[in-house]
Structure formats: structure tokens, C-alpha cells
């Protein structure tokens, strides 16, 4: 008897669940999407607190350690296991013929890793001056988890700071495209007629232009004396100029589809105002589809920024983004000799994949009534 009671309540729960609860139920079943969501959560969390998570100042040059490889974290030495991890010092040798630097671990020097250590000064979110880092070693030790670049700067810290720019540019860019896409797609779908035709032709035109030359032309138009923050927003606007087209089409298509639905006519007949129909009936019905499309549009933005910066047309040093970091890995020699310079590429791939997995899961969950 008790069993039956339980069953009924579970069924009733399903019947009274809101759209979002039903979506969450469906989404939870998509393991890959959950995995993507967790990865992205970690990435964004680290990016937000990049100063804390990085081990040192991103502009500090270690002239003795140019193109140093990543240092490994050890738990074991000749004496056995240590609870506190440590890194060995680096020994540099210069080949007298090729002048190539090679580094090897110096087993005589051992630098234990400390957590919540005081180190280089930075400003959290450019507001709060602090010097607390998640991990680090004491002077004169060094810790280069991802190696160093040609000026001897720590790539681990640079990658984390780059994540902040690259990940946020996707969000800001999509937010801009979202506004443009909703407004223009909404006009196109709701009013139709001439406005619809003009907007659709403009979208077709914009979409027919190859993106890289268009971006090149537009970013060449950005004044070179602009401060980095202005360039950052300039680049996001350039990226959204193409980005909004897809969203506008989704909004228009969905509106055209929903306008035909009987429940919209029913709302009209009972005397609901246009505003109420849009906000209470139309928006909730396609909000989930919009979220899916936004999720799938973000990786496009991130890839766009990366390719622009990689080509030297996007953000410029001293600003760091993954694309800017990848510029150091433009030739075969670097890739062969200093493969750790490619680590930002790995981050881009993982991020894009995670967004796509997440988007996939959201798409499957978007219409819980089918």
C-alpha cells in the first residue's frame, strides 16, 4: 500500500513540475552535458579568480629561465614519500654550437610547494590589492607548471589570465548578439512584411561574406592608439556583427511558428494585451531554445577571438588571451622545441567541446513536452 502511495506522488510530481524542472530532469540524464557543465564551471571559476590561482605576476621576466619546460610536481624523492609536494630546481645548459638552451632537473635543490602563500602583488578584479596565491614556492625557487615563454614569463599564470579574456569575450559577444538578434529577429518575425524582407536580406548578405576577411577589414579599422579595454570591446562588437545573424533567424523562425499556435489566439480572444502575450506566452515558449542557441554560439565567439588574435588582428600584447599566447607558437620550430607553448590551444579545444556538449544536452532538454 505504501508503495502505491509513493508511486502516485512521484507521478503527481511529474504532472505539477514546471517547464524548467522537467528540463532539468531531462538534462540530468545527459552525462556528457553534465560533464561539460562541470568543466565550464571550473574554467569560469578559475578565470574569475585568475590572480589567486596563478603562481606569479604575468609580466615578471625570469631572464635565467627562457623557454623553460614545465616543472613537474613531485611527491617522491630518494627518501620516499612526502605529504607536501615539491619541485626540483632547474639546471640550464647552453649548447655552444646551436646556442640552444636545455634544462634539466637539479636534484640537489628542492622547493616545497606551499598553499595560500604570499607572493607577487596583484589586484583582485582590479579593485582589491592582495598578494595571496593558491600555491607557490619560496624564493629563490621557481615554479613553472606550464613552462615559460621566450621572455621567461610564467605560462601557467599567463594561461589563467588569458582564460579570463577569452572566456569572457564569448559571453560579452553573445550578449551583444543576443540583444541585436532578439530585437531584429523579433521585429522580423512579429511584424513581417517589408521589415522582415529587408532584415532577412541583410542577414543573408552578412552571412555570405567570408568571416575572416570581414573581421580583418573591421579590426584594421580599429585605431591603433586605443587602450586595450577599448580594443577588447571593439573586437567583441566585430564578432557579434556576424554572430547576431544566426540568433535573429532562430528568434524569427520560432516567432512565426508560435504565432500560428492556437493558445496565442486563445490569449488574444480572452482579452490579453500584446505585451502579456509576448511576455507570458511567447517568451517562455522559446526561451529554452534561445538558451540552447546562445550556448552553441559562445564557442564560435571564442574561436573567432582566438583566430583574430592568432593572426595578430585581434587583441594585442600586453593583453593576454589564448589567441595572443598562441601567436608564440606560429612556427614549426617552436612546436618541435617548445611544445608547451601549445597549451592554450588545448584550453580552446576543451572549452569549445565542453560548450558543445552542454549545448547538446540543453537542446535535448529544451522541449520537455515532446
Amino acid at each position, binding site marked *: 500500500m505504501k508503495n502505491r502511495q509513493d508511486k502516485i506522488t512521484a507521478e503527481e510530481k511529474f*504532472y*505539477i513540475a514546471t517547464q524548467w524542472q522537467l528540463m532539468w530532469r531531462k538534462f540530468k540524464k545527459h552525462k556528457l552535458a553534465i560533464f561539460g557543465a562541470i568543466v565550464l564551471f571550473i574554467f569560469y571559476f578559475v578565470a574569475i579568480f585568475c590572480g589567486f590561482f596563478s603562481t606569479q605576476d604575468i609580466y615578471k621576466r625570469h631572464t635565467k629561465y627562457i623557454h623553460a619546460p614545465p616543472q613537474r610536481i613531485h611527491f617522491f624523492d630518494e627518501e620516499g614519500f612526502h605529504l607536501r609536494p615539491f619541485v626540483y630546481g632547474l639546471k640550464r645548459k647552453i649548447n655552444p654550437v646551436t646556442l640552444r638552451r636545455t634544462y634539466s632537473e637539479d636534484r640537489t635543490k628542492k622547493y616545497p610547494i606551499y598553499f595560500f602563500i604570499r607572493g607577487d602583488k596583484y589586484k583582485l578584479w582590479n579593485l582589491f590589492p592582495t598578494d595571496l596565491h593558491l600555491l607557490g614556492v619560496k624564493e629563490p625557487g621557481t615554479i613553472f607548471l606550464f613552462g615559460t615563454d621566450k621572455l621567461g614569463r610564467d605560462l601557467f599564470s599567463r594561461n589563467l589570465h588569458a582564460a579570463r579574456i577569452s572566456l569572457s569575450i564569448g559571453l560579452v559577444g553573445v550578449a551583444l548578439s543576443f540583444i541585436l538578434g532578439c530585437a531584429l529577429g523579433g521585429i522580423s518575425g512579429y511584424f513581417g512584411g517589408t521589415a522582415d*524582407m529587408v532584415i532577412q536580406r541583410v542577414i543573408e548578405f552578412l552571412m555570405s561574406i567570408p568571416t575572416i576577411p570581414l573581421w580583418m577589414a573591421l579590426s584594421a579599422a580599429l585605431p591603433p592608439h586605443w587602450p586595450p579595454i577599448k580594443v577588447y570591446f571593439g573586437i567583441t562588437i566585430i564578432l557579434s556583427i556576424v554572430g547576431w545573424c544566426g540568433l535573429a533567424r532562430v528568434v524569427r523562425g520560432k516567432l512565426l511558428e508560435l504565432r500560428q499556435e492556437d493558445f496565442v489566439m486563445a*490569449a488574444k480572444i*480572452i482579452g490579453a494585451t500584446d505585451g502579456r502575450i509576448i511576455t507570458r506566452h511567447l517568451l517562455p515558449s522559446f526561451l529554452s531554445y534561445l538558451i540552447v542557441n546562445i550556448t552553441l554560439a559562445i564557442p564560435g565567439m571564442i574561436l573567432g577571438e582566438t583566430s583574430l588574435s592568432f593572426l595578430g588582428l585581434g587583441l594585442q600584447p600586453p593583453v593576454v588571451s589564448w589567441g595572443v599566447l598562441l601567436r608564440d607558437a606560429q612556427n614549426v620550430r617552436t612546436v618541435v622545441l617548445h611544445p608547451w607553448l601549445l597549451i592554450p590551444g588545448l584550453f580552446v579545444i576543451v572549452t569549445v567541446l565542453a560548450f558543445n556538449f552542454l549545448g547538446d544536452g540543453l537542446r535535448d532538454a529544451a522541449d520537455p513536452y515532446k
Partner: protein
Amino acid sequence: MPKEDKKPLLEVKNLKKYFPIEKGFWKKIVGYVKAVDGVNLYVPEGETLGLVGESGCGKTTIGRCILRAIEPTGGEVLFKMGDSKMVDITRLNKEELRSIRKDMQLIFQDPYSSLDSRMTVLDIIGEPLLVNKIAKGVELRNRVKDLVKTVGLDVRHLRRYPHAFSGGQRQRIGIARALALNPKFIVADEPVSALDVSVQAQTLNLLQDLQKEFNLTYLFISHDLSVIEHISDRVAVMYVGKIVELAETEEFFLNPKHPYSEALLSALPKPDPRLRMERIILPGEIADPSNPPSGCYFHPRCKYAKDICKNEKPKWGEVGSEHWVACHFASKLTLRKVSG
């Protein structure tokens, strides 16, 4: 047209709805689909007018034009406001329309697309009360509970979403929503055609009970003559945007005057197994409303057609008491009626 003793609640005069056909890049209008082409009808208070016809003949369009859910191209829709004053709905502005719509509501054919799947039963049925500022909060809840009881649903299910219900239950929710504003007139647009036969009967009986209880007037649209026979006081037959015959239900079934009505009635299944079905199979297809035939629209399919039918449009005329037909030979033809 209406007689003195029966005061019409709704009168439709020469109603027209033409949909433009657009072609090419510049959306040039190359013609019109005459979905509703000069329709006259009236519905006396407390009665049910059954509107019957093939799919695509414009039944639904008439219903929606009357409510001005779509804008009619021409004609008048007169509706009785509170006292005996008749108001032309086609001339009302947005505000006046909103207030008159409290008196006229629509029940939809498709119980799936007519309910917003993202709202609870309480929100769906309560929305008319809320947007017209009639009730809110606890009072709204109580009124919705009453409505839910009236249409025979369980009051415990107010928090449920539409996907929890069967087609018949969903249709009841739709009916409750239509009743919420206490309307006088309801357009029921094929309210049972999407339902199982067993559920059809329940829903029809519910509609009849509600009619008695609230003194409702129905315009009942259907393609199913047996449903029409069951619920209607009078029947209007529609063919390609025009009404071809209008009569009281009994009169219509016993004494049809239009050849098209004869063909429709011959297809009505009869519950007697000894009777042999002798259906009249109409030749050809239903006429294209964007390019209708000359003269009487029905003449290419009519076995009684003469030359005059090709050349002249038949007049809408009374052939008996409360019996109107648009046919040149209405009084001369002897047509088959429903046997039994």
C-alpha cells in the same frame, strides 16, 4: 431575415474574408482565396447553429471572423450587447472589442495546441479572469475551482500542467477557459473532431448541459453530420465559402433542398444493418476557392446541373418556413432524404 419571435443574438451579413495570394520577390498580389464569400446567417439566443462542410470550405474562417480573431475583408457581424442594441463587431476599436469579447468565446479544435503547455491549469483557466481584472488571488482560485467542477474535472489537479491530461480532459480545460468570462455566445470550432468517439459523446453532452445551465448560444462548427444532428437546432451547409442551405435540423435531415446536402446526407452512416448504404459519390474535387467555377460553385459536381447553373449565380431564397437554399432548382428537385 430573422423572424419576430426569435431574437437573434448574432447576425452575420454578407461576411467576406479574402486571403491575398502573394507571388515572387516583391510579394505581388496575384489573386485572392475567397475563404468566406458573402455569408449570411443568424443565431437566435439560446440556440445552436451547426455549421457543416468539407475541410477547407471556410467554416473555421467564419468562426474566427465573427470573433475578429482574424480581420474580415467585408460585411457586418451584428452582436447583441447587454440590452437589445445590436453592435457591429467589425467596426469596434481595440478597447471596445476587448470588452465585447467577454461575451463571446471560442473553443478550439486541437486540445493540444490550444493550451499553453507552460502554464498550470489554474493559470490557464484563471487567465481570462486575471487579464480582465475580474478576480485575483484567493477569489480567482475559488472561481477556477468552480469552473473546473462545472466541466467535470478534479479540483485537486489545479497545479498540474496540460501534459498530464488526456485529449478529452484538455478539451474540458479549454471549455472551462471559454466559460470563465461568463459569455453569452460560444464558437465551438470542431470541438470534438480530435477526440475518441467515446469521449466525443461525453464532451457533446457536457456542451449541451452547459448550454442549458448558462443559457449559452453556440455556433457549432463540424464536418460530422451525426454530431451536428445531435447538438444543433438548425443546420447551415457550407460549400467553397458560401452557405448553400440553412434549415431547422429536423427539416434539413428530412427534406434537404440542395444537391450538395443530399450528397452529404447520403454519406451519413445509418445504424440499421439491413439498410444498404447508397452513397452519392460526387465526381471531381471540391472547387478551388482562389479560382471558383462560374455560376453556381457546385455545378461541376452536380448531377442535376443545367446550363443556367453554369452561367448564373443562384439566389439565396426561402423555400419553406425557416428554410433557405441557394439553388436554381431548389423547389423543383425531389431529393433523397435520410431514411429512418
